[in-house]
């Protein structure tokens, strides 16, 4: 090995580092460190002039090692490695000392900060001496993309990727594409009919030759790495042979079981049916089909694909052993009671996660009466009440099937609430305004109250929509609702619901009698988000939505290369933002497919043959089964392509035979010695 000639560069990062750490002092200190040929400071090391300093020194001073003390390596390690490379130095002869995120930003005392910066720097200078030249490997990319989630974000991502004429697998857990948007009546602020703009996209996705729609399916296992993932998809048994089914729907109309609360109608089907006290008693209970579905069903009329599924838990044949009416009625003979779940394995290069969200269940907020008082609805339930294909055919009716005279819309239910979710759900203000408008459109004389904390109308055309609603005779009351009660004190409250609220603008507690209450519930991560997080080894932020690589600069990437997130699975999001993210994620996938190869970090593990004793401790430790045993030599070896570079085998190897490029024992030892060198 040539004698190390190290250049040290300390960054001010404007005032981010320089205002806390005494940069000139650190530079002077660095000059005195062994092997350091040059130490310099710069206002912005990451800027072009900053990088040029490094390049120039490599060429002119013959540097063979570079250390930059600046921000986190997660931020700019790549930048500086590229700079070294362009000056002809192997990029792995570079080491970064993090003196911003882990020193200047977290320390108040300037002397202490400067001392710590020096310590961290010594660690880096010590370590870089032991660095080896490493070479990035390129592997081909499988030109197919997996999109998980068939809501508007997933559909958009699939269509965009398919537009590049590469294969897309679109996996949806429900029997139909569409997600939450398919349930909506209108969309804010333009009042576009949701179905009119969504269903064409659903059909396009289903008919696109480059998109394979896997409905009623779930991703159960993902292995491999960027560019080369192997994915196992479980197709849930629908008991309908999709090749034979014509989608005529006779089975659905003939199914004798009709009382199952429909998932698609949100919670509407869970309410008991209202029986007027003076209704004539005919012995037989009135048939209750409100918000209900049969046991063989498609979620909604425009379902794509239009193939029914049998809900095994509620099907009479499976619960009682008798029935099979659908089978008798099905002319093409598509019903197949013997169908089983089956698993398909596919190869993809990229994965776009667009699993969306679910809405908060307000039942625990007892003061709001949801679940106890039938006329308290969630936003999604009201969406179905408003919808012309919903159980009331778009008529706004109370539980007793009367036209409401006053409706309360309660904002921030479960959002901005320390007891539930601290985050703002972003869409509730706007959909609440939309409801107010729809109510006013359908029931001119109905009074509408919006109970809000703050109005957050931030998007394009949103504030204008709010202004419009202010003109539409909607009552805006600033205050958090304390209680919704079904018992009234005053005569005008009798038989109605009473909203008790502190009107913080009028500075008084008010009691407002209404006939219907809509709770604008928070958005929270989807039901199986946590499960999928583990399947894909993603991270979550503190609100439990998926964590993006960088909140501003890499909002659709995740910590894992080749896995992207789009839509509300990353955080509460409206339709325009979800669609935009889906496009961004698709662009990333297409970019990689177009490139054709991915570069694999060379920081993998390897085994020094001469030192391996063949003890096999490492073999079961590897989560990727990358370590095998060479029976002939009676030692272990590592399959480079499978190794992802965690180093667990290296940490466990008793003889030191297993090592990790870029993180080997020598390097870490020197770093430990470095950070502890000062007395």
């Amino acid at each position, binding site marked *: 090995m040539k004698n190390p000639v190290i250049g040290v560069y300390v960054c001010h990062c404007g005032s981010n580092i320089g205002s806390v750490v005494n940069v000139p002092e650190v530079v002077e200190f660095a000059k005195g460190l062994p092997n350091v040929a040059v130490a310099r400071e710069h206002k912005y090391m990451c800027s072009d002039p900053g990088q040029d300093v490094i390049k120039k020194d490599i060429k002119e001073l013959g540097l063979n090692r570079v250390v930059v003390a600046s921000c986190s390596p997660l931020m700019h390690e790549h930048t500086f490695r590229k700079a070294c490379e362009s000056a002809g130095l192997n990029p792995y002869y570079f080491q970064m000392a993090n003196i911003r995120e882990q020193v200047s930003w977290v320390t108040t005392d300037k002397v202490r900060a400067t001392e710590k910066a020096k310590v961290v720097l010594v660690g880096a200078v010590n370590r870089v001496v032991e660095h080896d030249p490493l070479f990035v490997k390129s592997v081909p990319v499988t030109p197919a993309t997996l999109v998980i989630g068939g809501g508007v974000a997933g559909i958009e991502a699939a269509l965009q990727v398919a537009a590049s004429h590469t294969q897309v697998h679109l996996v949806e857990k429900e029997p139909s594409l569409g997600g939450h948007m398919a349930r909506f009546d209108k969309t804010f602020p333009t009042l576009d009919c949701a179905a009119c703009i969504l269903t064409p996209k659903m059909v396009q996705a289903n008919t696109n030759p480059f998109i394979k729609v896997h409905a009623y399916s779930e991703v159960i296992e993902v292995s491999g790495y960027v560019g080369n993932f192997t994915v196992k998809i479980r197709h849930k048994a629908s008991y309908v042979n999709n090749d034979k089914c014509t989608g005529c729907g006779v089975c659905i109309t003939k199914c004798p079981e009709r009382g199952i609360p429909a998932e698609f109608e949100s919670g509407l089907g869970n309410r008991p049916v209202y029986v007027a006290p003076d209704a004539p008693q005919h012995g037989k209970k009135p048939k209750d089909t409100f918000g209900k579905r049969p046991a063989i069903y498609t979620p909604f009329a425009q379902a794509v694909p239009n193939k029914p599924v049998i809900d095994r838990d509620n099907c009479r044949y499976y619960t009682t052993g008798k029935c099979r009416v659908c089978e008798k009625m099905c002319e093409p003979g598509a019903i197949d009671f013997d169908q089983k779940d089956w698993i398909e394995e596919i190869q993809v290069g990229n994965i776009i996660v667009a699993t969306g969200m679910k809405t908060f269940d307000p039942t625990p907020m007892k*003061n709001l009466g949801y679940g106890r008082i039938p006329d308290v609805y969630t936003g999604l339930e009201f969406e179905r009440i408003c919808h012309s294909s919903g159980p009331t055919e778009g008529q706004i009716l109370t539980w007793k099937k009367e036209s409401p005279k006053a409706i309360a819309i309660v904002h921030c239910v479960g959002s901005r609430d320390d007891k539930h979710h601290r985050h703002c759900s972003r869409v509730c203000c706007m959909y609440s305004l939309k409801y107010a408008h729809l109510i006013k459109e359908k029931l001119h004389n109905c009074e509408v109250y919006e109970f809000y904390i703050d109005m957050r109308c931030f998007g394009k055309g949103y504030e204008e929509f709010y202004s419009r609603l202010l003109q539409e005779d909607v009552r805006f009351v600033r205050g958090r609702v304390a209680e919704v009660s079904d*018992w009234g004190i005053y005569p005008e409250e009798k038989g109605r619901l009473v909203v008790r609220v502190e009107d913080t603008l009028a500075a008084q507690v008010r009691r407002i009698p209404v006939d219907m209450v809509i709770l604008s519930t928070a958005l929270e991560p989807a039901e199986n988000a946590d499960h999928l997080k583990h399947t894909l080894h993603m991270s979550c932020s503190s609100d439990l939505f998926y964590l993006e690589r960088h909140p501003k600069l890499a909002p659709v990437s995740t910590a894992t290369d080749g896995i992207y997130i789009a839509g509300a699975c990353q955080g509460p999001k409206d339709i325009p933002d979800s669609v935009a993210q889906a496009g961004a994620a698709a662009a990333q996938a297409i970019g990689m497919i177009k490139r054709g190869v991915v570069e694999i970090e060379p920081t993998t593990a390897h085994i020094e043959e001469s030192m391996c004793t063949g003890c096999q401790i490492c073999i079961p430790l590897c989560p990727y089964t990358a370590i095998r045993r060479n029976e002939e030599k009676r030692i272990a070896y590592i399959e480079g392509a499978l190794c992802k570079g965690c180093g667990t085998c290296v940490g466990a190897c008793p003889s030191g035979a297993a090592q990790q490029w870029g993180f080997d024992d020598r390097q870490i030892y020197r770093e430990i010695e470095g950070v502890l060198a000062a007395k």
Partner: protein
Amino acid sequence: MNTYTYYPGCSMSATGKAYAESLETVAKVLDIRLAELDDWNCCGATAYFSVRETLSHAISARNLALAEAQGPGRDVVAACSACYLGLNKTNKYLKEFPELRKRVDSALDAGGLKYDGSLEVRHILEVVVKDVGLEKVAALTTRKLEGLKVASYAGCQMVRPYGFDDSECPVLLDNLVRAVGATPVPFAMAARCCGGSQMMTNEDAALRMTKNILLCAQDAGADVIITTCPLCQMNLDAFQAKVNHAFGTSFNIPILFFTQLLGLAFQVKPLGIERGVAKPGPALARFIS
């Protein structure tokens, strides 16, 4: 037989005498032993906590210190919701706030006492519902209170903030009512303040609160309101006439302690029902023989 350290508090020997009598009677049937805390003092409840915080915790802690010495490991049980809350609050604060703990410890020390924080403070209702259990209550019922419509009034202090029941929609009392064969009525005011602590300082406001509770029970068709607290009972019962006078209403709703209701179902005496101001109507009178 479960034994508990019983903290009666001041109301039980005055306005809550009927509570004390019925509790004693019913406890025998339920097979629970309430060992009264010897030399107990005021729980420090109501305004004291807001006026002299350390002192109020100190006198409350004195009771806990005595309880720890007299019945180590036994739960401290209070029947009055205010006592329950006061003792429970001190017990929790001492664990949570080391500074307060230091001050209280030195106060106890001056009186030759110490408290390790080993005890749990519980309300008698919780003991009946959770330790004895609803099945046992149902089994001990010798006369089902069939047809009796009961408004279960939990009040504010028992369920907030350390409630063992839902603080907005309490259900335990209703379950107990069902266990003895009576019918709970929907009662929106179940966990609202009775106005108790304001009756002396802001009578108008307090009477209005009392009125709303009575009105809600009347609207629901209740024959009786049951309570778990001597303060609530006194407010709702003794001030009914004043409410009627102030609002032109004509309430006559008997206010019983839940222990009295249990006593009626177990057919045991004495229960002190005759001590109530509002006299039982026919629906309730059937069961008082």
